């Protein structure tokens, strides 16, 4: 087989190999959709982040608007300090309410933004003041049991 034919075949091979990679990243993976472009960072303090992980989604009205960048423990106030990278296209009012939610009953956790009515917008690096911690299922159950027991006590007296 002469050189030109070999070159042709190798070129064909490399081309379809790269096409397969492209197919995997665009059609099978999600490179095209959730690639958040330019971002700015916001911070929030939570009493308890539950099972929140780095790279978890930040959603507003159910739409992904950013991702969790870093999670640190604040040793002065004993709270968790979460840094979020928010898409530059979206601005949020200063009284935005950040909550940690769970998708489904046992799904993964994400940060939800409930938007307030303030006219001033949050700037890069600022702190989201109003937050609500993750709901810990065990605490909820124990609270329920405790209430139930207290109710029973009240009935007896």
């Amino acid at each position, binding site marked *: 087989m002469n050189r030109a034919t070999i070159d042709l075949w*190798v070129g064909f*091979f490399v081309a379809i*190999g790269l096409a*397969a990679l492209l197919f*995997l990243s665009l059609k*099978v*993976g*999600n490179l095209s959709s959730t690639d958040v472009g330019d971002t700015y960072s916001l911070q929030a303090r939570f009493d308890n982040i539950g099972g929140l992980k780095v790279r978890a989604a930040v959603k507003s009205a159910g739409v992904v608007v950013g991702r969790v960048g870093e999670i640190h423990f604040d040793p002065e106030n004993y709270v968790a300090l979460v840094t979020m990278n928010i898409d530059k296209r979206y601005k949020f009012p200063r009284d935005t309410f950040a909550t940690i939610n769970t998708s489904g009953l046992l799904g993964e956790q994400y940060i939800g933004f409930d938007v307030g009515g303030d006219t001033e917008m949050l700037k890069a690096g600022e702190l989201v003041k109003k937050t609500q911690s993750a709901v810990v299922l065990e605490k909820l159950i124990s609270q329920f049991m405790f209430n139930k027991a207290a109710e029973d006590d009240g009935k007896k007296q």
Partner: protein
Amino acid sequence: MNLANLLRQLGRQVTDRIWRLGFASRFLLMTLLHSGTSLRRLQLTIREIYFTGVLSLIIILVSGLFVGMVLGLQGYDTLQRYGSSEALGVLVALSLVRELGPVVAALLFASRAGSAITAEIGLMKATEQLSAMEMMAVSPIARVVAPRFWAGVISMPLLAALFSAMGVLGGYLIGVQLIGVDEGSFWSQMQAAVDFRQDIMNGVIKSCVFGALVSWIAVFEGYDADPTAEGVSRATTRTVVTSSLAILAADFVLTAFLFRGL
């Protein structure tokens, strides 16, 4: 007396293995140092990519398609019991991109191309072509070994990607076209679950490592073969056995490293 002999034999075998490992490492280093030639004279490498990559295409594509179709059938059978047959796309894509694509493609590559490389270099050695090159002041490592090594490293990720892509298409054929899983949720759930960096790039990294491993073992076994017909045949067998074991062991180590954060 007998025990002493046994111990002696054991010790000899162990030192033999360690000696071979050391020689293999030195050989890899020499190959890397001599690989400048294979880049400067690209034609040599392209010829080897033709023999290792292009000629492996058929086996890789057909096996990928069948593996994907089997995943589609088996996955559907299990998933529909829990009423979540729409997750079939996720199952097929993740298992292919993360594990089956790189590993099975590398195993096929080792038996299809690795054995051929070993047999070729072993025969070159047996017919004293390598010595003849040295006589002409042509380094056989630069002229024969390095192009084959790099051809393997380049071909392997492309072959693994093709394997995964064919597998996903096979799963789609069985799941959507034959069984009738909803097409929209098949693709959208797959896209939501497969992450570019976590899954696809890690698969590519894996297949690059496997490509280097298989090519290294193949060229080394060929270069180290006894220059007899029997020696070449034994070296070829050793290539397939050693590289298969190396692929699976390396896969475990890489998985532990790459996916630990999940």
